[in-house]
């Protein structure tokens, strides 16, 4: 019985490989196009960030943080942290990583928020996509790194795609949560005054769900950042590269510095993305 079971192996892996082969032979044009667009996006962002002189950009970041949060402490922290990263010699790598994170988050928001809204309006759709979302978050990254490598070639694009696969569930889930927790009373108030479906979405549902959606986007940024080392494995530039190199050459100093730069970037992004205090707060 056991022998029979092992001898008649179900060729699951083979099927998937054949499927990927099918995609490469027939869909190469499409994947090349996607690769071109995303590559240009990341390249453009990176070039723009690196075009500005580092010190000027740090000052701009500080100014932006001040305008958003009006907190001296935060500005001092951000400027200090970025100066430290520059001092360590990781300015360019940090900007490359920042660009990857921004692009990944952008794609996640453009794809994830509409899916989250659609799922909140159609319970069957959410039931259908929930196992897929679970799969995207639990399947080991290396497993889908291989097909993305095959489909998109080496470089930043497969890194971006893998990052998106990993971080996409967060904005979808939180958008779904935000939209489906709109109190029925608000929904009915909108309907009672004659709101169309579109008006309900933009004037009632989205404003109500905005804090939750923002939390989803912040989470998405953090998840993207946690993927930089993996992305470096398929050739994406950024702070992951020195980490991988340090691992291969057992270079403790380099590994620690690059790791520190990643953590600093994570804290800066987290603090900046935290929702500013609501103006409507009492008192």
């Amino acid at each position: 019985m056991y022998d029979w079971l092992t001898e008649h192996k179900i060729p699951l892996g083979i099927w998937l490989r054949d499927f990927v082969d099918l995609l490469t032979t027939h869909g190469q044009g499409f994947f090349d196009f996607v690769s071109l667009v995303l590559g240009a996006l990341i390249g453009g962002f990176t070039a723009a960030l690196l075009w500005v002189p580092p010190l000027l950009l740090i000052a701009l970041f500080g100014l932006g943080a001040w305008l958003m949060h009006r907190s001296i402490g935060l500005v001092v922290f951000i400027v200090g942290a970025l100066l430290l990263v520059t001092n360590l010699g990781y300015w360019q790598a940090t900007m490359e990583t920042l660009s990857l994170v921004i692009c990944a988050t952008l794609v996640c928001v453009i794809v994830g928020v509409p899916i989250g809204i659609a799922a909140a309006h159609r319970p069957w759709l959410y039931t259908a996509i929930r196992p897929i979302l679970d799969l995207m978050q639990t399947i080991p990254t290396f497993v889908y790194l291989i097909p993305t490598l095959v489909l998109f070639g080496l470089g930043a694009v497969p890194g971006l795609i893998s990052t998106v696969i990993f971080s996409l569930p967060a904005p979808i889930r939180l958008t779904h949560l935000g939209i489906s927790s709109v109190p029925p009373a608000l929904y009915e108030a909108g309907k009672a005054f004659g709101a169309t479906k579109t008006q309900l979405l933009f004037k009632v549902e989205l404003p109500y769900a905005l804090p939750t959606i923002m939390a989803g986007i912040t989470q998405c940024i953090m998840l993207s950042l946690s993927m930089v080392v993996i992305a470096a494995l398929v050739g994406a530039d950024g702070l992951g590269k020195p980490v991988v190199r340090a691992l291969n050459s057992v270079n403790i100093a380099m590994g620690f510095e690059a790791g520190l730069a990643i953590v600093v970037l994570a804290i800066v992004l987290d603090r900046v993305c935290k929702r500013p205090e609501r103006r409507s707060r009492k008192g």
Partner: protein
Amino acid sequence: MPAVEFRNIDIVFGADQKGALKLIDEGRSREEILTATGAVLGAAGVSLAIERGEICVLMGLSGSGKSTILRAINRLNEVARGEVLVEHKGGAVDVARCDEDTLRDIRMHTVSMVFQQFGLLPWRTVRDNVGFGLELRGMGAAERRRIVDEKLAMVGLTNWAEKYTNELSGGMQQRVGLARAFATDADILLMDEPFSALDPLIRDKLQDELLDLQRRIHKTIVFVSHDLDEALKLGNKIAIMEGGRIVQAGTAEDILLRPANAYVAEFVKHMNPLNVLRGTAVMRPAASLRREGDAVVLDKGGRVKVKVDADGRPVSLDLDGRAGLLAVADGEAGKIDDKLASDSDCIVAPVDLKLKAAIELKRHTDLPILLVDNLGRLAGLCDDDEIYRGLLRRLDG
């Protein structure tokens, strides 16, 4: 044409509408329908006409179906069977069956709504909340602002326009809700227990303000309440509901004096009749009074008489040969100058005088109050005995 009319509507929540309707036709109760079909009976066989300018209060315990039928008027609830006619742009539209565009037009222009939990949008200022309906209509910012400021002044919130709604007290929040509903200038106002979430003093104040506003703007108001005092205070017409059906609809006095069944009787048992009962209900009718020629005898001994003219209007008072002073009180509240009242021997008041006002007037005089109809003709008498019987609600004898 009534402003709103329910024609034999049934509302069912749940998948098996057909099965539920069949059981409704067999006259089954809500529980039986629930066990047999899994559908919840919201309302069954409801027919009610609400006239223009009227405040109609739908009254009942929670789960009696009062909110359910209210929400059928702007189709927040779908009607399984029957018609809901709403007067819209000069014609009657069946809201239950009309197309989406008409429904939207009705919601934007003809019917507006006030909610129990206010239903305000917390990320908007008071001004933007009040302008919500106008904004949905696509009205320009300048015109919107003008109307909104006018409505804010109406509810006394001008100085709060830039605040966020969670900075306001419950009573103020509901004033915002009222202003929002008034802003679209809809003729029909649906109010779903608007004051239930407020504390009693604020509730009382807002009820007075609503009555005051209603005197100026004459909307058709459909008001849901579980509080009988509120219903009797506000309603020109009251419909009492139980288990999804209307058990009695009529004026406050009707319901208080002639409850249709034991349920209504139980409901009104602890009601305060002072503000509800009127002279017409308690008086001894003029026809039953002893007459001597052109005079009506007021006391048992026959020494006090009031002379009436050919049409039956009281003209003079005869106190055992001496002429007495007749004073006139106005309106259902029986307004009269205090000095005049205490100088007079007998008071003449309109026949729709409230029982409370009758007691007030009766303090000034030993003689019965003469109640006259709107042409000034003597309609009946209200003496201590009538007042006591009114208070005890023993009007049959």
